[in-house]
């Protein structure tokens, strides 16, 4: 199992975050933000997602998962 799940999670949220951030900046001041009480949630939450994604990617790189250690008991009663 050499897929570190933090990498795809980090990647996906970085993309979501980047997308929302750019979309939020482009639509700044648009009437769509009347819904969200005048807050540009796309830009602000996009930035949060981007930071989360980047942190996940960094964790996956900087602290790779150690190889699994198994202290599972030896084969027990054979199930049939």
């Amino acid at each position, binding site marked *: 199992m050499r897929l570190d799940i933090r990498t795809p999670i980090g990647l996906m949220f970085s993309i979501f975050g980047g997308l929302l951030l750019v979309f939020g900046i482009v639509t700044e001041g648009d009437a*769509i933000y009347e819904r969200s009480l005048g807050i540009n*949630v796309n830009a602000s939450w996009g930035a949060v997602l981007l930071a989360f994604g980047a942190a996940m990617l960094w964790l996956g790189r900087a602290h790779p998962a150690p190889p699994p250690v198994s202290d599972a008991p030896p084969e027990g009663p054979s199930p049939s």
Partner: protein
Amino acid sequence: MDQGIQLGGIDYVILAIYFVFVLGIGWALKAHQKTSEDFFLSGRSIPAWIAGLAFLSANLGAQEVIGMAASGAKYGIATSHFYWVGAIPAMVFVGVFMMPFYYGSRARSVPEYLKLRFDEKTRGFNAISFASMTVFSSGISMYALAKLFQVLLGWDFDFSIWISALIVLVYIYMGGLTSAIYNEVLQFFLIVLGFIPLVFLGLRDAGGWDGLVARLHGVATANGYPEGAWTQSWAHMGSPQSNPMGVEWFGMVMGLGFVLSFGYWCTDFLVVQRAMAADSMASARRTPLIAAVPKMLFPFLVIFPGMIAVALTYQGGDGFTLPRMADGTYDYTMSIPMMLGHYFPPGILGLGLTALMASFMSGMAGNVTAFNTVWTYDIYQSYIKKDGTDQHYLWMGRMTTIFGILVSVGCAYLATAFNNIMDFLQLVFAFVNAPLFATFLLGMFWRRATGHGAFFGLVLGTLAAAVHHGLTLPAGAAVGIKGGWLPGSPLHTYPSEMAQNFWTAIWAWTVCFVATIAISWLTRQKKSDDDLKGLVWALTPKIKEHGLPWWKTPEGLGALVLAMAVVLNAVFW
């Protein structure tokens, strides 16, 4: 629905990216599925934190998310009892006390544990009822989601069902349980990060926590309850009449806290499978404990939206309002979907809907992976083809994934035609599940409990649930699916459906517990102490993890988790 939600291009882009990642994870794990154990148990190689989040996420289906918000609107903060009285203590119990048996016995499923501990018929009973339960519940949630997307977005009902079924099928077919677990972790973060801004905006609109409390006081008095009925979880539990749940503290603690929650978290293979996939005993025991920490915070994410929705609705004006159903009552299940549409502009709206989609997929994948394992190991390998090669069972697992999803889709369509039949089936399964915890408790802690005792105890417990349901009725309900179908009923009328459910569970558990003990005394124990080693508490060597500070041991972690739950209960008392 008077106002459908219009999705913009960017929302579809976000949904599409999510689909790409979900399928990509399945594809990346394809090469690792070499044995049946890889496919069904992830080769027992999952680290604790991943297993923990998957443990949580598998339970976090769309029904849970939508249903908890609906309860939040209907019953207020008392809904948190499902978490802070129900789930958390049960999760600590399963991690500290039960995992040593589940993981240590090398059983590959919950029914298989029952076979090792008791006998073949007990396993068969559990395997068959569990397998049918999983396909039905995944069918019901598929129906609910397709219906929601139809109403909300105007999506074609068939399209919603088939596209989501196909995606779940592909990623499980390719990557087995590992793929389901990895995707559940992804879905977990998506659900959390998709709903936080919703709660933030809703709470802001309601005037913060103080504003919300003030508005909910109005909701409570308008419905004839004391002021704090929606905002205090314990203060009004003294009598069933003073809170909207219609239960008093004893029925709630015993029915919900003890029987239903322990029954679900400790014996439902859907969640237990995630811990069994952990890479070591230490990780398996920590899986539910790690899951308990975010679980405890989930009320803020799923119950708060419902409370906010009802508060704003009663306030009136041109702000947020819940839609009404045909009979004029509010449709509480629409709390989260309507809030998404009300507060989220295009862009983040795509994220919110993707989160809803993710919660649905994680719930469905949980059901499908549990189904294919129980079917392949406990039904197919046990009764149909005993001597297949491992490759044959791996193949069977893949075929069962296809078969299970097709049956689920069939159930979803069945639900469109016969809504009552699905309600009825869910009820029957609730009858089966409630007594099961008594069987496990006795099986794990009393070596004298016998196979006959367990089997007939379960059957009698299930019957007791049915009889109790047949003799009682919730106030104002019609005879039929809600109960009261036995002659001579109703012997008792409960203030609410919830109260009736809790007491049905209490009766089922008690009858199963007493009957199992009585029948065990009357029958011979066929398993020697040696057979029961690793399966019963007294005959299992205690696990000691040396060199850890107390708060890093499972017991210490469990105590910390419980202390946090006590604090939360006190804060919202």
